[in-house]
């Protein structure tokens, strides 16, 4: 964990020329990220071209039916985007600032539920409703994150974690018993604007999801590499020492928790748009546990770890659920045993990758470089 950079405001104003050079340098440094971005932008068309299905769906009469390989692949990726944003936001708080929360599902679930309630019961034009929902979700999750963050002044470590767990459990039980959102069956979100309706225009949902994913990634990277991010990491390594250095650590923790909560709310909105419903499961503690496990498996306190953890586990989940393997005379229905395999994956990853997948890879590379 020796990643803590020295805390310094080392950002002098650059000339236009230097900026140009730094752009090329950043291109060289980040070429892999740019390549992945280009692939993701073209992804629906690549799959469409490979499979021969249109990325816009199959026309039937005067409207499009969402059928075909490309459309299916888009929906898998939209889920990955939502999950990645959730896990990245969790990592901002947990991996970079060192605040363990077991209540992240509350923010995620509120994003979905608030949007659903505003669109269904607001009686507004869907486009305006969506904007109102966006603002309300950001404000409510922000305020809630702020309040929960203030409690972290008094509660530390596992006490704070369990406090957030209790708050999130109450939210889950509340929405599960709420009759206007149909209790355990969940709320159907039918009044989405037509351009963002996954049953008609999935590709738009895909690009909105991609935009959210890229923005979150860039935002967290910028934030963590900024002086503020250095303080976050100082808090993670040793909160008392950061205080002694003169930082008001509560302010920084509040900031981290609030931003993480708002991003999780946006992720919940995206998932609710994709599924066109908000079910109580999105508030369940298992969402938080998933985010925690995906962060740890991918690599705590790394930028790509959460994305790899989230997409890896979701892809395995999607494809192994339907897989049936036949080796000679033995046929194994993997889908039926999938959860069992997941359990073994957790155990194996813990025993094989001691610092998560990305963390272990970075360490191995560093050792290799040093020995050369």
């Amino acid at each position, binding site marked *: 964990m020796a990643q803590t950079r020295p805390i310094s405001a080392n950002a002098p104003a650059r000339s236009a020329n230097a900026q140009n050079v730094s752009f090329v340098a950043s291109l060289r440094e980040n070429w892999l990220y740019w390549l992945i971005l280009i692939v993701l932008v073209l992804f629906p068309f690549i799959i469409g071209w490979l499979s021969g299905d249109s990325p816009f769906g199959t026309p039937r009469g005067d409207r499009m039916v969402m059928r075909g390989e490309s459309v299916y692949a888009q929906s898998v990726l939209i889920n990955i985007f939502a999950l990645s944003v959730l896990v990245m936001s969790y990592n901002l708080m947990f991996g970079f600032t060192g605040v363990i929360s077991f209540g992240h599902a509350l923010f995620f679930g509120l994003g979905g539920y608030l949007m659903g309630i505003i669109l269904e019961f607001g009686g507004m034009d869907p486009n305006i409703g969506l904007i109102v929902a966006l603002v309300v979700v950001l404000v409510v999750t922000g305020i809630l994150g702020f309040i929960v963050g203030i*409690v972290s002044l*008094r*509660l*530390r470590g*596992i*006490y704070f974690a*369990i*406090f957030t*767990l*209790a*708050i999130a*459990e*109450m939210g889950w*039980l*509340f929405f*599960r*018993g709420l009759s206007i959102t149909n209790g355990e069956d969940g709320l159907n979100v039918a009044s989405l604007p037509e351009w963002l309706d996954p049953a008609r225009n999935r590709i738009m949902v895909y690009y909105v999801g991609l935009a959210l994913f890229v923005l979150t990634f860039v935002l967290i990277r910028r934030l963590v590499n900024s002086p503020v991010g250095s303080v976050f990491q100082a808090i993670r390594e040793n909160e008392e020492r950061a205080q002694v250095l003169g930082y008001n650590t509560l302010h920084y923790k509040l900031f981290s928790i609030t931003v993480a909560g708002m991003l999780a709310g946006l992720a919940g909105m995206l998932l609710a748009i994709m599924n066109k419903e908000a079910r109580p499961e999105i508030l369940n*503690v298992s969402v938080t*546990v998933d985010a*925690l*496990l995906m962060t*740890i*498996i991918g690599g*705590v306190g790394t930028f790509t770890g959460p994305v790899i953890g989230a997409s890896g586990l979701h892809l395995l989940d999607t494809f192994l659920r339907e897989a049936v393997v036949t080796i000679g005379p033995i046929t194994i229905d993997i889908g039926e*045993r999938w*959860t*069992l395999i*997941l*359990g*073994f*994956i*957790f*155990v194996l*990853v*813990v*025993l094989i990758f*001691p610092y998560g997948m990305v963390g272990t890879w970075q360490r191995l590379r560093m050792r290799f470089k040093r020995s050369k």
Partner: protein
Amino acid sequence: MGTNFFGGKRDAWLLVIGMFVAVLVFALFTSDFNLSSFAITLVSGLFQGMLLFLVASGLSLVFGLMDILNFAQGAYFMVGAYLAYDLQHATGVFNITEAVPDPNIRFIIGVLVALFVGAVLGWVLERWLLRPLYDRPLFQLVLTFGVSIIMLEGIRNIWNTTPYSWTDLFAIREAEFTLFGQAFSMYRLFVIGIGILLIIGIALLLRRTRLGIIVRAGVEDPEMVSALGINVRVVFTLVFTLGCAVAAFGGAIAAPFLGATISLGSTFLIQAIAVIVLGGLGSYEGTAVGSIIVGLALAAMQQFSIGVNIPVLATITPMLLLVIVLLVRPQGLFGEAR
């Protein structure tokens, strides 16, 4: 003497007494000062509190000593419940009804088998999976979670997902006792009694034996204990095994009431986590007192929520109680103030 009656934790005990009084007054109020319905609340509250304690005690000991939050604790509870159910009823996987026709003896066999299997599974988890991970506490969390999934799936594969409800009658379920003119199944008294015996038993173990002294010292500072020449790892294994065995035992004891269902583990696990934090992490008396308070509050709220017809009130009670206690006392009831 008088001034030092409460030990160093006078505030905590005063708060606990205050909470007990508040909960009991609330229970009296919800039962309209009718003693026989107050008795229902009281017995049901103590009963639920003891069930909670059976899961929470192991969790608390393990967390206090080795800083592991064992996510698999709920799964051990479930294993106990399934084993006890199975050994009692003819429809299960092992059919021992012909070999042992007496249902009372079958119940005792079920409980003992659950205790034994829980201990063995707990020993395996600590000795072979958790031990390499003591310098990486986060990964212990992932590992116990992975193990709980594997155990859950194992149960699902052996017994499938149908919930089993206990149908077999045996002596202790049929006998009755009366309190304030209200008749109760003797089984409830039996569970409450087992819970109280366990509270006293573990307290004696911690206070009066050499192992208990080592465990209490280990809670304070494990490194110092091993520096004194005590093999602290063996103690870790013992305590972890004991914790899992007690959880499985609790599942077996509770099975005649709760039956055996797949969701049993997670419900109890979360409530038990709430209880040990409410009582103060690492504090055994906190866990015991916390379980009883939460159980009583739950029962009173169940009564109340039926009256006002808001069922959510009862289910959120343990969490609400935890939030309030933490806001008033950030270290939990008996936790060490920083």
